[in-house]
């Protein structure tokens, strides 16, 4: 199958092609959205008022685990697409469930991290820095949450309908979204946590 030059299942209908292109353009809008969040965060980063600064509260160990969980989930999501292309429904479902579990693990760690910060005296209302920090990470976290809900709905549809042109294109789009969240996280890890610890 893989050696033939054949249009992948998710690209076969014209509507699917347009859906995928439309989603890429939506991701373009998402890039603008996150760029705005990052830029605002950089503006507010040092406005800590009377509250703590980044290096006072960040726990790199937890953040590393989160990074590991999310990056692995992107990998397993890729394996799910690979199974889908091979018409292997069982493999597909297995890898998606693992992806979602890793995503849920990431969320659990992140929520714990937030609770820890609140105990350290860094709440949403503390300063310009905390406002920028929590909304940037919160928006990313909200995207992950939405992604888990969305892909759960797709699992039900895949179980009910199997791998068809339509379910394949729907899941392919969800996978683009999932990978995108990973890319955003890499920027968060680098420019929020690492930069925050160093500078």
């Amino acid at each position, binding site marked *: 199958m893989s050696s033939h030059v054949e249009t992948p299942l998710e690209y076969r209908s*014209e509507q699917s*092609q*347009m*859906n995928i*292109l*439309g989603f890429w*353009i*939506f991701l*373009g*809008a*998402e890039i*603008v*959205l996150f760029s*705005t*969040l990052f830029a*605002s965060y950089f*503006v*507010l980063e040092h*406005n*800590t*008022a*009377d*509250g703590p600064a980044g290096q006072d509260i960040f726990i790199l160990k937890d953040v590393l685990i989160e990074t590991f969980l999310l990056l692995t989930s992107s990998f397993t999501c890729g394996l799910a697409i690979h199974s889908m292309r091979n018409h292997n429904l069982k493999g597909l479902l297995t890898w998606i469930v693992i992806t979602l579990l890793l995503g849920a693990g990431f969320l659990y760690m992140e929520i714990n991290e937030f609770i820890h910060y609140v105990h350290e005296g860094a709440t*949403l*209302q*503390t*300063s*310009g*820095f905390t*406002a*920028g920090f929590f*909304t940037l990470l919160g928006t990313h976290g909200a995207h992950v949450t939405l992604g888990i809900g*969305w892909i759960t*709905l*797709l699992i039900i*549809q895949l179980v009910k309908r199997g791998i068809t042109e*339509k379910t394949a294109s729907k899941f392919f789009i969800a996978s683009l979204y999932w990978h995108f969240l990973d890319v955003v996280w890499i920027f968060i890890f680098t420019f929020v946590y690492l930069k925050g610890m160093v500078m």
Partner: protein
Amino acid sequence: MSFDEILVTGDPLIFASQIAIGLTMIGLIALITYLKRWKWLWSEWFTTVDHKKIGIMYIISGVLMFFRGGVDGLLMKAQTSRPGLEVLDAQHYDEIFTTHGVIMILFMAMPLLIGVMNVVVPLQIGARDVAFPKLNALSFWLFFVGAMLFNVSFVLGGSPDAGWTSYFPLAGKEFTPGVGNNYYAIAIQIAGIGTLATGINFVVTILKMRAPGMTWMRMPMFTWTSFITSIIIVAAFPIFTIALLYMTFDRLFGTHFFTVASGGDPMLWLNLFWLWGHPEVYIVVLPAFGMFSEVIATFARKNLFGYKSMVVSVAGIAFLSMLVWVHHFYTMGNSAAVNSIFSLTTMMIAIPTGVKIFNWLFTLRKGRIEFSTSMLWALAFIPCFTIGGVTGVMLAMAAADYQYHNTMFLVAHFHYVLIPGVVFAVFAALYYWWPKMFGFKLNEKIGKWHFWLFVIGFNMTFMPMFFVGLDGMSRRLYTYSESTGWGAWLGFSAIGSLILAAGFAALCYNIYWSFRYAPRDVGSDPWHARTLEWMTASPAPHYNFAVVPEVEQRDDFWHKKKREETGLKKADLKPVHMPNNSWMPIFLASAIGLVGFFLVFEWFTLAIIASVGIVIGLIANSFDYDDGYHIPVDELEEEEREWRGDLK
């Protein structure tokens, strides 16, 4: 705020409006019930995914909002018509200029332009609908819900009153308590998400759904400008989404994004607002340029002069539009270097814009000009808009701007840009494409009344503002003393605004008159036009084209007419695939509107309960596998025979 306090009380003007709104609502509901039209409304309009009907709904909403924003404008003109008047108190004046600005830009200009785009673009490229018809309906309903939410503010809870730019720290909770500015943050957010979806939709539509043979350089100019506008929407609206989110957080949850205390930064709001706000100006003005290009080429009976330079200049304007935002606040403490750079980028915009003006002029040169109402708008646009453009270059000079900044000169400038640039264009477009939407023309004689009243009223209203502005009158000033000497200018301006309003009334009368009496047999191509939308019946059938045309050159329809190749061969007919109606868009938008309403009043428990509706809508949408339906060949044949006579 508790339930029993939400009705605004104490102002006779607002009290009268509340009664009027109540009576109108009861009257409308009674009328629809009496005429037994509920089912028709639901199945033909509320659940439609047809781009033409969605476009018409956008246009109707836009005209209604024009009325609302216009009344705000007239109230301001009445208040300032003489020194020391008290038609409105200062607070009420603040609310009126805020809602006037927001409504005119976001709820009048945007829906009118997006409405025309919806009707025309798929027809111009030979498509059956947009790429995502259901999403298109959702865009409309989100816009509509946002507009309604914003409009109820003045009777429920109070209007926003910090200006359409809502600068911080003024717009923060500390200086503007109450719910007014919550409306600003939330209603615009809802409408903005709809606009973003429209942008994505039209980018994909124009990229993927053009008729065979329609290459990039064969696209009609209005399609080009719509495409580039859609790209600016995708690039600029998410910035505003975040700015409004921050504003919502500052106001509802006490964060410190834009506050003065605790490390907030009010200038962050200004930058984010104008990073969206300046491209927004081009989002509304570029489609308008496209409309003028179509109208001028049609009524000069010539192809558009300098097509390629037109495309390049539109793209150039779009690119530069992202690089000029700081010119909105030269006076707020930037370094000289920063101001100089933004002066340069701003003045550079005059170059591609000038190219366009000359292209239109050269299109007119040696043309056989037909002075239809539509063409008159285009002709009036060129000098009026040039005044707006030239004063814009004056404002672009940072050093000189210290004199003009926040004066009535600026107000006059942007009205001279936006009214000829957007409103004239929409009027030209309405007269031009009306037959394609409804199958009859608007009356030309009433149209000329509309035109002359509006153009004369417009110049009388806004020209004096340049002079009082240069004389130092600041914008948003609710009253002034006699010794300023502005009374005569502003009195003259107020009279002008009444003539302007009479022009608008003439349009409304024209629509009414034409619906009742205009002749219905105008044919498919009443203006001898050049582009594909005139190749199909008027009004356009729901499937647009029985057979998708093959395009061989620019202005293809014009050349096909010359060769008499516009007919339809029966053998070419094939079943047409169409999407089904859907209740999802209106349901989802209503749920979002309800959540928005509760958030405005900070009733968080209710908001959480209501958001269950959103979740249900999204889940239902995910499980929707509706594939639409096919129109059989005999049905197509019957409909096409009705206007073409016999098929070949």
